């Protein structure tokens, strides 16, 4: 055994679908790799896999988690190393039919194998709280819950947090995604504090609604890959830094807006009685 610290197994989950789990996993994976962490991203969304696509690795998949579990290939053969960021590797999800026999213990086995040669294992969780979620949780020790400032997403996040608590997952941290500073200033979107108070989780990151996210998924190049300074890119990089213990101040969505309209917006929030 080497004397390096044990690997961290971090689940990225949300409950509600489409709130940004896979985008966060891809960007965080790249950002952590850039910081010198040997990072594996595990696509645990066997039904609707997409992590390969967001990382631009879809054409390089030969084997998947399925063959590794069946013993028909070695882990190294299935791992897809990122060319530009060799500290990052993807373990692709297998065929959706895997869901018929996959058990939590299988996920534990896969995660343990990854932990042998990586510092951090990020697990991209499927939406929902059914078997796919339970399998993914089995592989994790800590979790990042991602949500948007919308009632349905926050409610589903709360469900998931309850389940993570019963599974003893710790720490559980929150990423708030698709924040629109203007709507927040107009009090037409739940405030950051509202969400953190309701869910009672520490805030690990705050990602603004950002068109560049879509541009980067079109290209299969996560925003954190090429030093983009778009707001979302910075947010993802900061999440990676905080995960590694660095103290980085959170952006204030109110200050993200400049100009006269923003000033007026702040004035309008003054309590008058």
């Amino acid at each position, binding site marked *: 055994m080497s004397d390096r610290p044990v690997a961290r197994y971090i689940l990225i989950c949300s409950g509600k679908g489409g709130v940004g789990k896979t985008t966060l996993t891809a960007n965080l994976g790249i950002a952590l790799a850039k910081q010198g962490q040997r990072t594996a991203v595990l696509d645990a969304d066997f039904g609707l896999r997409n992590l390969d696509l967001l990382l631009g690795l879809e054409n390089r998949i030969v084997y998947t988690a399925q063959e590794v579990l069946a013993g028909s290939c070695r882990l190294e053969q299935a791992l897809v190393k990122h060319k530009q960021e060799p500290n990052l590797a993807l373990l692709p999800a297998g065929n959706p039919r895997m869901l018929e026999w996959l058990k939590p213990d299988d996920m534990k086995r896969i995660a343990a194998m990854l932990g042998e040669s990586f510092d951090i294992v990020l697990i991209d969780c499927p939406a929902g709280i059914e078997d796919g979620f339970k399998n993914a949780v089995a592989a994790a020790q800590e979790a990042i819950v991602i949500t948007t400032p919308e009632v349905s997403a926050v409610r589903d996040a709360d469900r998931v947090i309850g389940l993570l608590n019963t599974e003893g997952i710790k720490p559980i941290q929150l990423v708030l995604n698709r924040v629109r500073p203007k709507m927040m200033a107009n009090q037409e979107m739940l405030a950051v504090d509202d969400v953190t108070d309701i869910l009672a989780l520490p805030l690990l990151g705050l990602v603004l609604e950002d068109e560049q996210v879509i541009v980067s998924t079109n290209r299969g190049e996560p925003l954190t890959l090429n030093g983009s300074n778009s707001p979302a890119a910075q947010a993802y990089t900061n999440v990676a830094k905080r995960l590694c213990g660095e103290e980085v101040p959170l952006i204030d969505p109110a200050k993200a807006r400049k100009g006269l309209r923003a000033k007026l917006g702040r004035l*309008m929030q003054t309590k008058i009685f």
Partner: protein
Amino acid sequence: MTLRDFVNKLLGRQPASAATAKQRLQLVLAHDRSDLNPELLEQMRREILEVVSRYVEIDLEEGDVSLETEDRVTALVANLPIKRAKAVVNPAEADGEAADPVWTASRA
């Protein structure tokens, strides 16, 4: 009330929606977390009022039993204004006839 709420009111507009969202979420999460649906809660409310009213006369209109939640801890909060105390009844005999009622003086 914020300046925005005031202006909205003046112009006859709907108040900003974030506060409504927060309120609705807090309510629905209190139910989710305790796994009590509104029906069960209503049944529990009726039974609590029934038990309490054996001991004190309460204002049934004002009586309120609800779930509140803070920091992931959910509490059942009962707010039952007492009109006046009743004869203390031995709970074991509450359904039958109570012998020698004792009057208590404490009131809310």
